[in-house]
């Protein structure tokens, strides 16, 4: 029985010949219907995403204020970026964000999914509790976390009550704590989301594997290491992309809490891009920053995925 599941990952290819030239459709070679299956979504995405994206890439080569005609400057924006202090700060902060926010959301998301994977009484409530921040509007989230982080807010009051009054800070206004303070609400919103992804993945693991391992005498940690984690590899690819995408696009929470401040100490590439494009009205430079963000995200994900594809095939 175990043999079947190990086969599950590979799609066997008893194919006669690989396609040559035009897609000469044999009976099992990509029927035209299947092509349509791909083309329709692709067209939708091409229209609404790729076409504007190309325009965005073109804007990165210009200097534009949103109103008058754009002025072509070639790679001038990118050259400016190299000498830009704020860009460097934002890039470092983004890397830090990726590690902390990304790493913690994956770990804690998996941990909570493992904790709440069994269908028992009350687990629906706990799952909903963890997922609730994900569905809560951003405006309310920002409001509440500002109330928590204020100098006389909930957090400082709790610290005072616990006798740790010396640790009180103006969390969002102090340049040393701003970035780390903002990671907490971002994690609060993200962990439920990652948990749901891992839950779906855990549900897909054949329980027969666990029973077999239990019969063989494997303890809980061994089952986790040797069955759960390897079986989750597919989900891990998804979770990694989610995390990278969300980290690099992590804009809402940071913007609404600190706007990248105080004086750029919690500036991420995404907030810097938004402020250049929509506050300083330098859309060319903002687009150039967006291109950088895109390349970073693509680089991380593509390298991982190419390796994953090579392994699987």
């Amino acid at each position: 029985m175990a043999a079947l599941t190990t086969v599950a990952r590979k799609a066997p290819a008893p194919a006669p010949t690989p396609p040559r030239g035009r897609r000469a459709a044999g009976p099992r070679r990509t029927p035209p219907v299947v092509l349509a299956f791909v083309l329709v979504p692709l067209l939708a995405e091409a229209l609404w995403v790729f076409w504007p994206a190309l325009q965005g890439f073109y804007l990165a080569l210009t200097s534009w204020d949103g109103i008058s005609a754009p002025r072509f400057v070639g790679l001038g924006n990118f050259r400016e970026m190299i000498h830009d202090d704020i860009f460097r700060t934002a890039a470092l902060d983004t890397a830090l964000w990726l590690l902390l926010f990304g790493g913690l959301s994956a770990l804690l998301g998996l941990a909570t999914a493992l904790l709440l994977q069994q269908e028992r009484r009350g687990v629906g409530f706990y799952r909903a509790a963890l997922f609730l921040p994900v569905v809560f509007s951003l405006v309310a989230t920002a409001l509440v976390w500002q109330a928590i982080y204020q100098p006389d807010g909930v957090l400082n009051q709790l610290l005072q009550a616990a006798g740790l009054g010396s640790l009180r800070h103006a969390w969002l206004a102090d340049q040393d704590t701003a970035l780390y303070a903002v990671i907490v609400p971002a994690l609060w919103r993200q962990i439920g989301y990652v948990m749901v992804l891992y839950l779906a993945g855990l549900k897909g693991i054949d329980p027969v594997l666990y029973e077999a391992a239990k019969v063989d005498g494997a303890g809980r940690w061994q089952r986790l290491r040797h069955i759960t984690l390897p079986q989750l590899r597919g989900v891990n690819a998804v979770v990694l992309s989610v995390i990278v995408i969300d980290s690099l696009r992590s804009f809402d929470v940071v913007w609404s809490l600190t706007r990248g401040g105080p004086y750029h100490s919690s500036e991420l590439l995404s907030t810097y891009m938004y402020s250049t494009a929509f506050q300083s009205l330098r859309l060319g430079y903002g687009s150039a920053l967006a291109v950088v963000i895109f390349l970073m995200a693509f680089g991380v994900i593509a390298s991982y995925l190419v390796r994953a594809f090579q392994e699987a095939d």
Partner: protein
Amino acid sequence: MTTPHTSSSTTSAAALRRRRLSTAGFHAGAGALSLLWLLPIALVLVTSLRSFDDIAAHGLGSRPQSFTLGNFKQAWVDGGQQRALINSLAVTVPCVVVTLALAAMAAFALSRYEMPLRRSLLLLMLGGNLLPPQILLIPVSRLSELMGVYDTLPALIGVQVGFGVGFYVFVLHGFMRAIPAEIQQAAVVDGAGPWQIFRRIILPLTRPALAALSALSFTWIFNDLLWAITVLRSDSKMPITAALIGLQGQYVSMWNVIAAGSVIAAAPTVAVFLRFQRHFVAGLNLGAVK
């Protein structure tokens, strides 16, 4: 296959106690975690029940000294949330259905068939999601103007579908790849075409993934703000997220009404999540192959 019951009464009692303790421990741990998680939301709830003068006089983090349900009415009527909620649902439900349908179709094609360029196509579609949406805002608004759908809800649906489909293709691709090929081969031998294989076999098998993704995409689309602001201009067409920030004033905001509005705005997504999480129970069914 009977479990050997080598128990004397004391061992079974000990096992029972251990099970009870572990259950209690689970509930204590999960309960504490949930409480921590819900604390900020409780704060929002409390704020939504206070009067504006109370908050203005004592601050947001203070103990409430008033109680009123009027904020909900104000958000619902004056804040235009009734209409905005309808707009949100009118956009989100078709979006989720269309996006997941398209994504399932594309994932099916890319994972179950040896299509040329399938890996590049997958990466390409996922790549669309890697772009920071902020930079697409102005090109998309121009595009919707060109197409004549600016300031209409179908434009918003179109943008959301186009922007979301790439990621869901990728996720469903991962799930569909894990389905053993024998099932599909058996169906082909029985004379099923791709559409039937898709509908009758693959789709039911990816139900847990589809359920999870429906809940997530409903949330994503429902809570979206940027695209709504970009392609819509009239306040009568705005979805609930935009209506919520519309409650903020130029200088001063009525936080109590906004908090009440957030609670109203969160209700549909919570309901959807609670409804769909039961579907996670269905695991991958390999019984057919046996």
